[in-house]
C-alpha cells in the first residue's frame, strides 16, 4: 500500500497551535480565490495550428539545408582528425625516421696574413646632428690614444700571462704623480693593464713620463715607459716585435 501523499493543509506543523488554523484558513481562501482563468476564444484553433507545425529535427534539417550539411561535416572532420592522426602516429608498425641534422665543417683554413705591423684603426666620429663639436679632433685623439693603450695592454698581458690580477690595486696609487718614482710608474702601467683601464692618463703622470723619457736613453728606459711613449704620441705603427 502506497503511503498517502502529503499535501497542503494536512502537514502544517501541529505544534504551532492556533496559528495553524489561521494559516489553513488563509490557504483555503487562496485556493478559493485562485479561480481558473478562461482561455481566449481562438485558443484551441491557434493551438491546433501550432501542433501541426513540424518540430525542428536535426535529421530533417540536414536533409533540407545543404549549408548545414557542410557545417556539420566540417565539425565532424575537425573533431575526429586530431585524435585519429595521433592514433596513427602511435601505431607500432609505423617506423618514424628521425630527421638527421647534418653540418659540414669548413675545410678551407683562412689565410693568415703576416704583416710587419698591426694596421692602424682609425677613429671615425659618429654623425649626431647638433653634437658635432663633441666629436672634434680632441675626441679623435682621445679615442686613438685609448686604442693604443688597449694594444699595449694586450701585448703586456700576452707576455705576462702569469700576472696575478690581485696585485692590481682598486684605486689609483697617486692622485698627484709629480714626485712618483720610476718603479711606481711601471707598477701603474701594470695596474692599468690588469684592470683594463684605457682612459687617458692624468696630466701630472703624462708630464712625469715625458720628463723621464727626455732624460733617459731609450736602451735604459723600462718597457712600460716605452709603451707609454707610443701610447701618448703614436709614432708610427704599433711596435712589432712586442715591447714586452
Amino acid at each position, binding site marked *: 500500500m502506497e503511503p498517502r501523499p502529503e499535501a497542503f493543509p494536512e*502537514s502544517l506543523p501541529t505544534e504551532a497551535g492556533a496559528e495553524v488554523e489561521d494559516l489553513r484558513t488563509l490557504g483555503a481562501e487562496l485556493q478559493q480565490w485562485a479561480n481558473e482563468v478562461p482561455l481566449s476564444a481562438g485558443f484551441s484553433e491557434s493551438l491546433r495550428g501550432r501542433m501541426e507545425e513540424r518540430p525542428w529535427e536535426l535529421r530533417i534539417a540536414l536533409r533540407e539545408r545543404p549549408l548545414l550539411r557542410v557545417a556539420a561535416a566540417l565539425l565532424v572532420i575537425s573533431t575526429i582528425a586530431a585524435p585519429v592522426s595521433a592514433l596513427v602516429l602511435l601505431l607500432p608498425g609505423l617506423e618514424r625516421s628521425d630527421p638527421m641534422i647534418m653540418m659540414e665543417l669548413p675545410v678551407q683554413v683562412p689565410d693568415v696574413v703576416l704583416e710587419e705591423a698591426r694596421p692602424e684603426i682609425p677613429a671615425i666620429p659618429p654623425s649626431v646632428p647638433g653634437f658635432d663639436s663633441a666629436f672634434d679632433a680632441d675626441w679623435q685623439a682621445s679615442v686613438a690614444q685609448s686604442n693604443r693603450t688597449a694594444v699595449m695592454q694586450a701585448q703586456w698581458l700576452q707576455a705576462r700571462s702569469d700576472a696575478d690580477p690581485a696585485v692590481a690595486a682598486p684605486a689609483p696609487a697617486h692622485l698627484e704623480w709629480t714626485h712618483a718614482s720610476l718603479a711606481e710608474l711601471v707598477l701603474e702601467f701594470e695596474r692599468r693593464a690588469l684592470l683594463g683601464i684605457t682612459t687617458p692618463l692624468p696630466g701630472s703622470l703624462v708630464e712625469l713620463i715625458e720628463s723621464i723619457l727626455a732624460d733617459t736613453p731609450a736602451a735604459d728606459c723600462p718597457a712600460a715607459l716605452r709603451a707609454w711613449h707610443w701610447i701618448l704620441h703614436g709614432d708610427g705603427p704599433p711596435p712589432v716585435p712586442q715591447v714586452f
Partner: protein
Amino acid sequence: MQPGPDDLLVRFQAGDAAAFDQLVSEMGPRLKGYFLRQGAQNATAEDLTQLVFVRVFQARQRYKSSGRLDAYLLRIAHNLWIDSRRRKRFLTGGDDLPDAVDSSPGPAEEAVAGDRASVLRAALGRLPVETRELLELAVLQRLPYQEVSEILDIPVGTVKSRVYYSLRKLRDKLAVLEPEADQDGTSSGSLS
C-alpha cells in the same frame, strides 16, 4: 486528475483524440492562471499555455503515466516559465521587465482598490518569486508535496516547512496591505 485509466494522455495515446481536447479544456485555464499569477501578461500566459500543450503533444509517445497528469503539465509549465524569464532577462540585458506595457493596476493600486481578491493578488505579487511559486504549486494548484519537491528540486521536508513560512509571510503582507485598503474605505472580509 489521477493516473490510470482516467489519465487523459494515456487515453490520447490509445487513440482517443477527444481526450486531448478534454485535457486542453480542463488544464488550459489552470495553466493560464498559473502563468498569470507568476507575473506573465495575458498574451504571454496564453502563449506559454499553448507551448505546454505543444510539448505534451510532441512527447506523447514517450509519456508514461507515473504520477498525476496535472503535476506533469505543471512541471513543463514551470520549466517554460523559467526559460521565458531567462530569455527575457537576456534580451533586456538583465532587467526583469514586464512583457509589455501593462494597463492593469499594479499590486499597490489593486490593494488600494480594496477588493479582497485584489488585496490577495497584491500580497502575492509582493512575495519573492520562489515563495510565490511554492505557494502556487503546493496551495493554489493543490499538488502533493512530493510532486512540488520534484518540480522545484528541493526536499519534501523543505517544501513542508517553506509552505508554512510562506503562508506566514503572506499573512504579514496582507496585514500591511489591508489597512491601506481600509483607509480607502472599500475593504471587505477578513483573514482569520
